């Protein structure tokens, strides 16, 4: 799944133009557009991070949202209980998410296919309940973060820019994985663990590294999300809906292109905003229909990619 947007310089130019255009956009738009786009960047980053482990690694981490929740709570506790600044909260989020991925990775990578998917689902459920029972984190009542300073306009622009910056970091990480040593290791890995090992790839280390990068990015956007909404509760930040949304975006956008997930995120988030506006009380169902339609009408995107990347040689439960 080599990224196929032409040569690296051309890719860099395209991305640079898009990034500059997005960076100057807040000067010409209002709070609503900025907030919606910030959401697109957030979900897009989630999808890019998920793609690292699910697309490149071939491990469908259905419960990757656990890092989003951990990141949100890490920054929540850091800011609300320890009165640390936002940047320290972000750092705590990245550290905690990475640490958890590195700690559980060796255990979880003994699983494959949807056993791995279910394992991560279980991890998310267990962590969500632990957090719910943590008095420090506010328990089931949720946790209120300090309010960001500024007017609604400047706050919207601030989060727009922060999410855009993280998106750029995520894209850079994707290119780094794709073009670098890790990318070659992943391609060898998809030919089978035995093949990769015979080529001198430390398979476990490769997988754990991929998941750690994915977790760090996911934790970071969780932290920013928490600060932007100023109130978090476990069902919200450990919601599997976010993971599913990211998978739909991955399937729609394809993994072979760098900007594909971003375009897909734009359409999916647009659809979410529209349904919430026009189908009050039916928005969940309408979104369900959109998900169903995406899978039924894009079988090529879904099938070609998923079959080749996930399950062609990976149907065994465990080694």
């Amino acid at each position, binding site marked *: 799944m080599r990224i196929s947007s032409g040569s690296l310089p051309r890719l860099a130019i395209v991305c640079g133009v898009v990034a500059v255009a997005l960076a100057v956009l807040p000067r010409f738009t209002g709070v609503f557009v900025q907030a919606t786009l910030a959401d697109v960047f957030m979900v897009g980053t989630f999808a890019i991070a998920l793609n690292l482990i699910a697309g490149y690694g071939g491990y469908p981490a259905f419960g990757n949202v656990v890092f989003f929740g951990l990141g949100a709570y890490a920054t929540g506790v850091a800011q609300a209980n320890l009165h640390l600044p936002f940047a320290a909260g972000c750092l705590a989020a990245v550290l905690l998410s990475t640490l958890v991925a590195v700690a559980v990775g060796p255990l979880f990578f*003994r699983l494959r296919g949807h056993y791995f*998917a*279910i394992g991560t689902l279980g991890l998310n*459920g267990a962590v969500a309940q632990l957090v719910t029972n943590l008095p420090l984190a506010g328990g089931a009542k949720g946790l209120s973060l300090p309010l960001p300073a500024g007017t609604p306009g400047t706050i919207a622009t601030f989060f727009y820019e922060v999410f855009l910056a993280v998106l750029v970091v995520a894209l850079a990480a994707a290119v780094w994985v794709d073009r670098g040593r890790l990318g070659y290791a992943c391609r060898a890995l998809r030919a089978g663990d035995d093949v990769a090992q015979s080529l001198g790839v430390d398979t476990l280390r490769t997988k754990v590294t991929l998941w750690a990068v994915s977790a760090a990015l996911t934790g970071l956007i969780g932290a920013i999300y928490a600060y932007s909404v100023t109130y978090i509760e476990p069902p919200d930040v450990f919601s599997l809906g976010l993971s599913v949304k990211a998978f739909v975006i991955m399937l729609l956008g394809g993994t072979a292109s760098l900007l594909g997930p971003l375009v897909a995120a734009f359409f999916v988030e647009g659809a979410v905003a529209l349904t919430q506006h026009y189908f009050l009380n039916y928005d*969940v169902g309408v*979104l369900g229909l959109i998900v*169903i339609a995406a*899978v039924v009408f894009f*079988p090529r995107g*879904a099938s070609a990619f998923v079959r080749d990347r996930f399950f062609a040689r990976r149907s065994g439960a465990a080694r």
Partner: protein
Amino acid sequence: MQTVQAIVNGILVGGFYASMAMGFSIVWGVMNIIDLAHGSLIIIGAYVTYELCTHLGVDPLLTIPVAAVALFALGYVLQRYLINRVLQASVFATLILTFGLDRVLVNANLRIFSADIRGITVPYTAAALTIGDLRIPLIRLAVFCVAILSTLALWLFLERTRLGIAIKATSFDPEAARLSGIDPARIYAVTFGIGAALAGIAGALVAAVSTFSPVIGDGLTTRAFVVVVLGGLGSVPGAIAGGMLLGVTENLMASVFPSFSDAAAFALLIVFLVARPRGLFGRRFYADI
């Protein structure tokens, strides 16, 4: 004594878990579909029973066949006209598809039946068998028996009937089954119908013994997952053993650390996935796990 009561409660609820998980397991085992809408199908079954009981005054246990038939029809149609279309795509496409389906069903249930928490009271709700300090409510015992019987009926069906054998043959090798004159698309629709019918039965049992609302479906789906992983994919004795293991673990945990019973279920899931991914009674039977 409290511990013994917790274990007995766990075994009783474990029977219900077994019937709930068996429907989930057969769909997963035969078609490699993880049906995330299973919980919502159970809830629909619960509403069938609830409506019949409150409006027509029928005993909840007598509504079980109605719930089973209604859900079979729904499941058959869903598989035949929707899920079969993406079956060739991948396991993951079907996972996302059933998630979308689940959202639609949850929303429909909320609009049709409202978010109110429902429950049924029967004249014998309070009746119980007492052995010493041990208390076994009759309705729970009845639910336990129905659950175990329906699970065993499925096993007999798969082992002894032509259709059951055709289902197993299709899960082994769809192409070879086709050569023997079996239409896999129809078999898949029947299989999903059976899974949904078991969900309907489980739903009727939920309505008979506890309260429910459209949003508890997710928790039921998760438990079905856990039971299948504990017991082993496609195994009937596994579903019964796994259901009881989960039921007892949850009840023991609830009697010691009430707020951690879900975490205990997930911990059990992860331990089994890592240490024994084929479960207690798992075998390479239905599909390539």
